[in-house]
């Protein structure tokens, strides 16, 4: 078990090999049946003239940025809060984690019925409390739906990042806080001078998972909006799914897959190199 061999073997056989096949497929026309036809760069040319793909790229970028901006501060705050040792904080933490434990299909159905504009629980709440802003066409308003989707994805995944931050906060040596307290630091200063610098690696890890995760995010959007209204929530992974499995254009779908993977890899490697992980690489390099 000790070594890079076993995971490498699994990874190469079931991920790398299929990925290479996907790259090859991006150069053929294939409807999933019969023999593929060589297409050269035709699929790739199609990408640059496809307005739907361009929209999908824009929607994906919005989703990734919004997800990061929304999830990080909330997760960090809740993580620091639940890192405390008081009993009631354990209770809070246990309730906080519940959305993470639910199957995605269940979450989608739950929010669909909550947000139903006719019978939904929010509409009912709006009627009984008079808060009219709660009565919206949440999943049908082209100006609103992407934000609703971002919020639901946040609802599902903030618990995990909260957990990461809570674990990270517990690892910070108590001595550092005691020293800061002796220097007369306020709690706010301690947050900036001790907690955040100490959580650097956690922030990077959580950031990579968040960004790469929302880049390829699919499930909730597929079930709830299927990309609509119009193309306002059609992220790239959904576009790829539609092109492959509903339009039977596997070659072009592979182009989208390759682009999605390459962008994701570039972001991941960029984050690794230009953040805390990079110092590890050079430090190790020096040592070796």
């Amino acid at each position, binding site marked *: 078990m000790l070594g890079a061999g076993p995971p490498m073997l699994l990874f*190469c056989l079931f991920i*790398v090999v299929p990925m290479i*096949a996907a790259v*090859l497929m991006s150069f053929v026309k294939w409807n999933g049946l019969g023999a593929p036809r060589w297409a050269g760069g035709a699929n790739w040319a199609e990408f640059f003239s496809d307005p739907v793909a361009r929209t999908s790229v824009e929607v994906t970028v919005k989703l990734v940025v919004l997800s990061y901006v929304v999830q990080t501060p909330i997760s960090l705050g809740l993580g620091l809060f639940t890192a405390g040792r008081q009993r009631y904080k354990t209770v809070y933490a246990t309730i906080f984690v519940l959305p993470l434990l639910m199957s995605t299909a269940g979450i989608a159905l739950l929010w669909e019925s909550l947000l139903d504009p*006719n019978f939904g629980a929010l509409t009912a709440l709006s009627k009984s409390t008079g808060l009219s802003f709660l009565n919206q066409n949440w999943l*049908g308003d082209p100006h609103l739906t992407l934000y609703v989707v971002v919020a639901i994805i946040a609802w599902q995944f903030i618990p995990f990042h909260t957990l990461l931050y809570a674990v990270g906060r517990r690892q910070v040596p108590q001595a550092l806080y005691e020293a800061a307290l002796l220097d007369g630091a306020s709690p706010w200063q301690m947050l900036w001078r001790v907690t955040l610098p100490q959580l650097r690696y956690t922030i990077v890890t959580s950031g990579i998972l968040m960004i790469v995760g929302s880049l390829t995010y699919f499930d909730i959007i597929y079930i709830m909006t299927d990309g609509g209204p119009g193309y306002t929530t059609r992220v790239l992974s959904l576009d790829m799914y539609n092109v492959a499995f*509903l339009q039977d254009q596997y070659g072009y779908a592979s182009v989208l897959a390759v682009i999605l993977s390459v962008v994701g890899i570039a972001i991941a490697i960029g984050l690794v190199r230009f953040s805390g992980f990079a110092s590890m690489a050079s430090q190790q390099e020096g040592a070796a």
Partner: protein
Amino acid sequence: MHRVSAPRIRGRRWLAAGAAVATAVVLAACGSAAGGGKTSASGGGAKGKTVTMWLVTTGPSPANTAVENLVKSFEKSHPGDHIDYNFVENQSYKQKIQLAMGAGNAPTIFWTWGGGTLQQYIKAGDVASLGHPSWMSDFLPSSLGAVTDQGKLYGIPVEGTQPVYFFYNKQIFSKYHLTFPKTWNELLSTVKTLKSHGVTPISLAEGDQWPGLMYLEYLTDRIGGPSVAQALQSNKKGAWSNPAVTKALSDIQQLVRAGAFQSGYDSLKFSGGGSDALVYSGKAAMQLMGDWDISSILGSDPSFVKGGNLGMAPFPTVAGGTGNPADLAGNTASYVSISSKATATQKKIAEEFFADALTSPSYAKSEVGAGEVPVTKGASPMFAGQSLASYDKTIYNSVEHAPSFQYSWDQAMTPQVANVMLTNLAQVFELSETPAKFESLLNNQAASGS
């Protein structure tokens, strides 16, 4: 910087070697999968006298049970034969069967809507032809078109017919002294009247996209007759610019502008039951839907249906239109076909299952018992004594006598066109796309897809 780059170069060489091996493996795998016309056991290791069968689930409902019982009795009367069946949820099924087909691993018997998707499989040589079996004459002629290609039959109906009608709340109509509109103009004025009383005229589940298509199908037929849809389905050049399509699309937008649909119609899904609830709770007056809506509403609010409050009416006529008012649109039936990759023994068992079991009157009877309307000839007397007999009889008669039964376009057309059509039609319903734009997009898609 160069300290970091050294292992990267080594990594690349390592990767190159891996890639070479990987490519070889994948090419070998794909090559034999795609080129393999030779017969092999189908459906993941089914052997000998076992055949596999994939069906789309209708939920934990009586229709599933009817098929299960049928398999049981078939296995009893054909000792040694075994049918290993599996129900799959509808939305996931398309992907599952497509992958299995592509890899030559399809089940012996597979469920299909027929139409454009089945035609792709036929073209790729994945479906076994049934020729001209004697049981063909047992079924209503309109029910076999979706599984017929160049005069040959490729499937058999497995579940009932599903034409589309308007379903309406009779209480609302009688309260405001309305009768169900017979023409499009009457429909528009009914909409106006209902709105003036604060009732949502029409419930629409456009979040699913296919409910809106029903309007386009019917309007096109009422305006230009069945030949318009036939031209669309064969991807004729410029077919989408037909004036009947243009008029149908602008009629749809007229209805939207009249405020006929409930708020949030563009995100509501039929599956959650919301669009039904609008009708039976009296918030909306009517809904255009397939005949499954009867059992769907019965499941949610039995007293509403049993109290005789659910009305059913054909789609209105359009002034100046050439289509026959008795024409229908919807799913003629759902079907099962046989994979061409199955062994000779498996094919023989499957054909026996078709000829002996699926065509049997007792199966048609149990379908009726499950609330389905079968497409076998002479089924009319079977409905006697059923709780929904009056609806079922009307449906059966209208199917039997329909001059044309237009198959749902999203199933009839090739997948390349169908998906784009649904997405863009939803935008027509949202008034964010003009009919002209819709038509030019679809003309292009049809040209590139064929």
